[in-house]
């Protein structure tokens, strides 16, 4: 299982999907020119590597901010994970800065829309 690692840029997030280490994370900020194109490799990786989640896994979202087209892709990501979780074990850890009320409520929003263990944490 090859890891998917994308370095963060000023407008797009860092991505870590590493089954061997059991690390799953999206960080930095997400406002790419084409969010659909940016997130597509993440979805195809998940499609191919569902088995990775047979052991208990935590998917971390540590975003400073994201645009509304990325919001839609994040929802899609959670739907993928929700489907994977039917036969596996996935939890979401949503990180937010203690002063960032918006990021906190965004996490709350997703936690209500998605049937997955969803924890909000400070960073």
């Amino acid at each position: 299982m090859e890891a998917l690692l994308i370095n963060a840029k000023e407008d797009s997030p860092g991505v870590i999907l590493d089954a061997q280490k059991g690390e799953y994370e999206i960080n930095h900020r997400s406002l790419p020119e084409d969010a659909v194109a940016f997130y597509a490799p993440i979805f195809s990786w998940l499609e191919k590597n569902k088995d990775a989640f047979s052991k208990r896994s935590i998917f971390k979202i540590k975003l400073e901010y994201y645009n509304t087209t990325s919001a839609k892709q994040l929802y899609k990501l959670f739907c993928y994970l929700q489907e994977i979780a039917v036969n596996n074990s996935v939890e979401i850890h949503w990180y937010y800065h203690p002063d960032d009320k918006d990021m906190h409520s965004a996490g709350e929003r997703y936690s209500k829309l998605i049937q997955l263990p969803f924890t909000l944490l400070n960073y």
Partner: protein
Amino acid sequence: MKENSELSFVYQLYTHLSAFSLSYIYKGDFSDHLNETILSLAETNMQIVNEPSALKKKVFFIMVESLQNITRHTEAVDDLSNDNSSLFIIQRKAQDYYITSGNLIDVDKVEPLVHKLEKVNSLDPESLKSYYREVLDMGELSNKGGAGLGLIEMARKSGNKLAFAFNPINTKKSFFYFQSKVTLSGGKDNTLDHIEPEALDAAKSFHQIVLNKNLNFVFQGDFNHENMKTVLNMTEGNMSRDNQLLFRKRIVNIIVELIQNIYKHANTTLDGNEKHKGVFMIERHEERYIITSGNLIYASRVPALTEKLERVNNSDSSKLSELFNSLLMAEERVDQRGAGLGLIDMKLKSKHNLSYLIQPVDADFAFFTVQVKIEDIAN
């Protein structure tokens, strides 16, 4: 809430600037960070239109000199009136660039400055060269390190005479406008081109609009992802550390949504190549930002857009939140040009209704202006 007719100045400005393929104005405090981002915004745009490197170098040189003139020679403002803030303008028309600086100077410096400028303007390229050496040898340094060498070099590099004007402010201060026109072929002929008074007037009236509307930053041209990043970089660098994190983040969010809205949805009347022309502006106060964008859209899209805007403005935050969720969960369609998430997000983050105006242009097009206000308050 209905349309806001006070926003009609945005289309006026757009029309006023439409002779230029690029117009960029900044008014306020100049710092090294800001100067860097101004330069990189120009660089990004020159790269996109694929300017010859000789022209890029010239434009860059003139910009650096102009920005240095502003930071070096601006006199402190004693009456604290915002109207006397320094300013920087770059405009592109065909393959010519007009670079204008504006700053306050002491009236007793006006005469020596005029003398220098007229001297430079009286010389042909050959005599400029020898005058440059002469000044260099004499070491005629002013107390701030400017020897007039900068002016000579600007005339030589631009290949054009230097345009200037003074606007007396009071008995002690005058506002100094200074403009260079940079042409690709400039400097190769035996004489320097004549000054175009209308180009300096255009810059001055651009400045006047900016003053009347209390704007700090205006960018008009083709919008894309690259220049959005530069605008963000500039705004973030300029924000006061005193402002709360949430306020700063919300401003970034709104800028992203507005500019991405232009480069994804602006329609263009001319030539058919995929350009996304628009105008974007910021009015900045310590604890309040007003961010405005304007662009052409197809007239056929007006009813659907108006409906979206009215739905957003007529919904309270819990209803907006529901609407946001339903759009978030809706199937993605390739032809779905903006679900309206951006509009909802801007109202939720700014805590204000979206001010907007849609003006008919002709049978095919309308002009869409949207304005978002945001305050730094603790919620």
